[in-house]
Every structure is written in structure tokens, then in C-alpha cells.
């Protein structure tokens, strides 16, 4: 420090991560800080790279499902959904309607769980301790439901090509129906604790604004895009599964700041609850697995499937070869990765403390970014 002339502003590079509590995993940021202001950011990813895309080429179609579980590890059902849909598209399989309902119910439950995790960790990021406990209390209940359905709390391996592994357990829907009001109440409690809190507003309003144009340019999707005011939801624009039968609204923000991103997610929890309630009303007994086989050998072909994961537009590009048990190539398009692309623009000129807020509200999962 002796060499630095005292008259010039002292600017130094801060290495945030890969082991930093605010980076939610193993993201590494090189931040040039001028006092508390950020002048330049460099993002480094790849600390959680497991080579999933390459691994998939050596696994059979049934084994790949368990690899997809580990992409976005807080929204496993949604990940499985995309993959399974891609294989079904190549096979030209029709999925029984009950299986679709089961898929949607579990996916939406998982979306709630994921957004609750977002709520809790954002609270921790901006210094509030209790939100994470409230959120995890509810997430715990949701995971108990997942366990009762799939047998695992997180890595479910539940969806199958052409359906789902098992039917819902006895009394599941009734129990879920009685639980949803409690969940609503809990979300309301979370709302009271943080949403309109003065300090929270100060910390998130106008912080990390992502303009509409930038958001579209960076291919940001999901709640982050909707917070910037673009009403774009794959469930609505390219409806898949049984989403055309369901009524739900798409909450959008206006400013594209951190608070909007937070608010959109909190609203999405309500929407997901609404969707699940509709599903519970509509679901009817029936087969849960179509004409599917344990050994899957799809014809030569390729398919691209987009689904709305809790983090946004998750795409799976699948190329298959004739008479092969393994795919030729799988490419995932992960929404978190695109959100991270926008990070550099968003962090420019913000406070160091705001970097934490912005990282929190972008709600990326490194497992999905690095793959």
C-alpha cells in the first residue's frame, strides 16, 4: 500500500467469491471498487461445471432424468419436465391427462418452493434474519409433499418419458388442498415482514434497474424479464402440457428494479397456488403412464422444448440417432446464465451493498449456469 499515491482516488479490485455468502453458490466476481462504488465487474463462472451435457451423451434416456434433477437443484421437477417433454416430442408420445396434471401440480409446487428460497436468501442478503426461517418452514412442508410423491426431497427422478413414475399417493390432493390456505397465510406473513418495509424499500427500490431493452437484448427471461415490464411467459406464449386449460395471470413489473423482481416472484407464488387449486379441482382418475417402455430408442430426430422454470425460459435441445439408447447431443439453455450476462451492466456504478441485493434478486442457480 506504500506505492499508492495519496492524491489519486484509491481503486482496488475486490474478489467476491467463489466462496462468498452473497454469491449463492460458486459464482466469482472481480469487482473494481472505488470506495463503495463499483466501477467495473468481471464475472467468472464454471466452478460448478460437471459436464452434464457431455455426460448425457453416455447415458440412456432413462438415466438422464436423474442428471437433469441436478441442474437447477431447487426446481428439480421443472428441469425433469423439460427433458421428458423433449424426448416425448421426438417419440411423438401422448401423455395421459392425469400424468400431465400430476406434472403441473408438482412443477408449480416446486416453483413455490424455489421462490420461497429466493425470498429467504434475499432477506439474508440484505441483512434480515427471519425471512429465511419463515420461508424454509414452508419449503420444508412442500418438500415433505415432494417426498410423499416421489420418495425424495430434492432429487426426485419422478417424471418418466410418457408419464410419471407413480400415481399420487392416497389422500395427497386432499392434504394439499387443506395445506394451501396455510401456505397462503404464511406467504402473507412473509409479505408483511419484508415487502413494504421501509428499509427494504430503500434497499431495493431503484436498485439494479434492468431496462426493458437491455433485458430483451440479454435474453433475460422469467421473472427477471417480467419485472422489466415484458409480459412474456412460456406457459402463456407457447403453452405446453395442460397450461392452456388453466387460468392464471402474469405479474409484471414496471421499473425493472430489484423490488420489482422481488414483487413479481411473490406474486407468482400466489399465481402458482391458484394454478394448483385449479388442478386439484380438474384432476380426474386415469392412467398416469402412456405407451412407454423401459428401453427407449427414439427415431432419428431433433427437438427443442422450452418450459417456464422458476428462473425463466429453460430450453432443452435434443438430437437423437437412429436405434440408439443414448442421445446424440443435449444442449440446455439455462435462464440463469442469461441473467448473469446482464449482471455487468446492472452492477455498473452501484454500491457494493447493492451488488448483493442485485445478485439476490436475479435468483440464479449456479448448478444451472455451469451445468
Amino acid at each position, binding site marked *: 500500500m506504500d506505492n499508492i499515491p495519496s492524491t489519486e482516488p484509491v481503486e*482496488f*479490485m*475486490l*474478489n467476491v467469491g467463489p466462496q*462468498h*455468502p*452473497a454469491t449463492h453458490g460458486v459464482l466469482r466476481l472481480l469487482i473494481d*471498487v472505488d*470506495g*463503495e462504488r463499483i466501477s467495473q465487474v468481471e464475472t467468472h463462472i464454471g466452478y460448478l461445471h460437471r459436464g452434464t451435457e457431455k455426460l448425457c451423451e453416455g447415458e440412456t434416456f432413462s438415466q438422464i432424468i436423474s442428471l437433469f434433477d441436478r441442474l437447477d437443484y431447487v426446481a428439480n421437477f421443472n428441469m425433469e419436465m423439460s427433458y421428458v417433454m423433449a424426448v416425448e416430442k421426438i417419440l411423438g408420445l401422448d401423455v395421459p391427462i392425469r400424468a400431465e396434471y400430476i406434472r403441473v401440480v408438482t412443477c408449480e409446487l416446486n416453483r413455490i418452493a424455489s421462490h420461497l428460497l429466493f425470498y429467504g436468501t434475499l*432477506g*439474508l*442478503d*440484505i*441483512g*434480515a*434474519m*427471519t425471512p429465511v*426461517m*419463515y420461508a424454509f*418452514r414452508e419449503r420444508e412442508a412442500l418438500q415433505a409433499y415432494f417426498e410423499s410423491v416421489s420418495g425424495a426431497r430434492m432429487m426426485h427422478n419422478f417424471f418418466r418419458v410418457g408419464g410419471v413414475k407413480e400415481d399420487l399417493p392416497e389422500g395427497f390432493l386432499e392434504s394439499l388442498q387443506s395445506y394451501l390456505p396455510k401456505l397462503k397465510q404464511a406467504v402473507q406473513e412473509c*409479505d408483511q*415482514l*419484508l*415487502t*413494504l*418495509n*421501509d*428499509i*427494504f*424499500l*430503500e*434497499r431495493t*427500490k431503484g436498485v439494479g434497474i434492468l431496462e426493458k431493452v437491455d433485458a430483451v437484448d440479454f435474453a433475460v427471461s422469467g421473472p427477471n424479464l417480467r419485472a422489466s415490464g415484458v409480459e412474456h411467459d412460456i406457459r402463456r406464449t407457447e403453452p405446453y402440457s395442460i397450461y392452456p386449460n388453466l387460468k392464471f395471470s402474469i*405479474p409484471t*413489473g*414496471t*421499473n425493472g428494479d430489484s423490488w420489482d423482481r422481488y*414483487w413479481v416472484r411473490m*406474486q407468482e407464488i400466489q399465481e402458482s397456488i391458484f394454478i394448483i387449486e385449479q388442478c386439484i379441482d380438474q384432476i380426474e382418475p386415469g392412467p398416469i403412464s402412456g405407451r412407454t417402455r423401459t428401453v427407449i430408442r427414439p427415431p432419428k430426430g431433433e427437438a427443442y422444448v422450452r418450459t417456464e422454470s422458476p428462473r425463466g425460459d429453460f430450453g432443452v435441445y435434443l438430437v437423437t440417432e437412429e436405434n440408439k439408447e443414448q442421445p446424440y447431443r443435449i444442449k440446455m439453455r439455462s435462464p440463469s446464465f442469461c441473467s448473469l450476462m446482464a449482471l455487468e451492466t446492472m452492477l455498473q456504478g452501484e*454500491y*457494493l*451493498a*447493492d451488488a*448483493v441485493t442485485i445478485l439476490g434478486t436475479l435468483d440464479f442457480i449456479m448448478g444451472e449456469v455451469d451445468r
Partner: protein
Amino acid sequence: MSTLLITITQVSILLAFIMVMVLILTYLERKVLARIQMRMGPMRTGPYGILQSLADMMKLLAKEDIRPHGSDRMLFYLAPLFVFVPSFLIWITIPFTRNIVVENLELGLFYIVAVSTVSIVGMVLAGWASGGKYSILGSARSAAQLISYELPLVFVIAGVGILAQSFNLITIVNQQSSIPAIVYQPLGFTIFFVAGLAEVGRIPFDIPHAESEVVGGPFVEYSGIRWSIFFLAEYANTLAIATLSVLLFLGGWSGPLTEHFEWLQPIWLILKVSAILFLIFWIRATLPRFRIDQLMQFAWKILLPLSFVYIMVNATVPFVETVITSNAASNQLTGIAQIILGACQILILFLVAFAISKRRKKYLTHLHQGVPA
């Protein structure tokens, strides 16, 4: 010789007392936070986990003492003492009852303010000496924050002194034997409490060692016993702020029946201090953290002007009273003057709260249509 011995004994008893209090305080904090968050807190060590803080202490003592490469050896080792010693010295003049106090200084409050400022040096030294970037940032933050919040704190203490015509804590408490000062100085209590929270770096003002931003601030590089000394100082300060606000505004040890039973005095003090501590924990569990610029704005634009107003009100009302009643001999306020003073301060508090709420309205107009009210 014997006086020296007595002093040494007193001081060591005080030191042991603070250590024990800090152990109890950490346990209580964890328990209270846990209850607020519907957890149980420590349950494993001893019944209901009461030995948890003891176990923590043992672990910290047994931990390896690491000094990072590139740190300044001497300052790195000295910094914890710079932080801890002032926070301990404060306690010398804090009375626990009318008679139990190590040194009843005539300028006790002045002494507390003077000594507690020194700990800023320790914070800055700790950050600088460890040679880490996070610690530098943390120490810069803590220097800025502590200096800013020192001012409103000092002004409030001055205001209290003006009203009491004394800087002696025992005198101040004795004057509140009938009515606690918070009744006619709500503004003073609020400023003191908020500035005190910031002074000890608790949520929402824990910016110097924000875990999610600078990962512990000035103490990042410290471990084991040295880190525990910082920790000790922080909790001793928290306790000191809670005790001071009780002594200055909540009537200290005075309470029902204390006139007849001397032994009730410390119990009343402990009860009141616990209430303030619960308030501190409760706030910690509820609120998020400010950003550094918002913190500064809050200090210089809201708290400092408020404390000026507070001093002015505190000086004017007794002056007017003496002019009207021409009764200069008594330094105690009459009941009517107290009511007027209290009314003035509550009015000011409401005005400020109203102004802040107005700002919130401004935010709300930016919000969307469907926002829950």
C-alpha cells in the same frame, strides 16, 4: 497500597461480571432469536443448552491463533485490546444500584462518551492491520458509521445533562425516582436508542460487519481468542447501551417498593435492561440492514438535526420555567414543565415519523396497481 488492592479487586470483579454477563447475553440472544423464528436455539449442551456459550468460549480459546501473511504483526495483536479496553472502561462508572459502583465519577457521562470513542481506533486498526481488502472496507465503514453516530449520542447525553444539571449517573437516576425520564423525554430516548444501536453495530446498522457484503468487516482475518475479544467488546457495548438507556431514561433501579426494600433495586434494573435487550434482539430479528449511504443520510440529515432540536427544547423549557416561576434554586422540573416538555418532544417525534411516511407514500405511487396495501 490498600486502596490500590481494593481497586484491583473491584476491577477484576467487574471484569468477571462483564464476562459472565456477555456469556449469558449471547445465550439469551440466540434463544430469543430462535423463538422469534420458531426455532429452539441451542439445545444440546446442558439442559436447554444453557452451557452453549461456555462451550463456544472453550472452542474459541482452543482454536489456533492465525495471523495472515502480510498483516502488521504488532497492530494486528493490539487491535482487539483497543476495542475491548474502552468498552470495559465504560463500566467503571456505571452504577448498578445507589451504592454499587466502582467509581462514582462526578462527570460520569462525559467520561463514558470520551472513553467509548477510543474503540473506533481499534476497529480501524484491526481492519488495516489484517491487510485484507474486506477488512479495509469494513474498517472504513465502521469508522464512518461510529463517528457519525457518536454526534447524536453526545448531543442526547448533553441534553440529559442540561435537564439534570449533572453528569453524574447516580444523580440522574435519583431525579427519576418518581417518574422515569422517558415520559418527558421520549425524543431523547428514541435518538439515544437508535444512535446506540448504530454505535454498537447491530441490525439495522450492522454495516461494518455485514456478513453478506464484507463477510465480517474488520474481523474477517481474526480467529480464536482474538476474534472472541472483539465479540466480547461488542456484547459488552450492547449491554452498556442498554444499561445506559435504562439509567438515563427509564429510571434505572427505581421502581415500586424500592424505597422500602433495598434489594429490589438491582432486580428492577435487570428487568428494565432485559426489556431493552429484548427490544434490540427483536429489532435484529425483524429489520433488514441499511446501505452505507442511507446510514449516513439517516445520521446527518435526520438524527443530528433532531438531536439539535432536542437540546434546544431541553434547554428552553427549564429556562422559561425558571423565568416564570423565578425559582432558580431547584434544578428539578415541575410537573407542568415536564408535561410541556413531553408534549413538545412527542410532537416532534410525530412530525418526523409523518415526514418519513410521506417518503414512503412517494414510493407507493411508483408501485403497481395490484399492490397489497
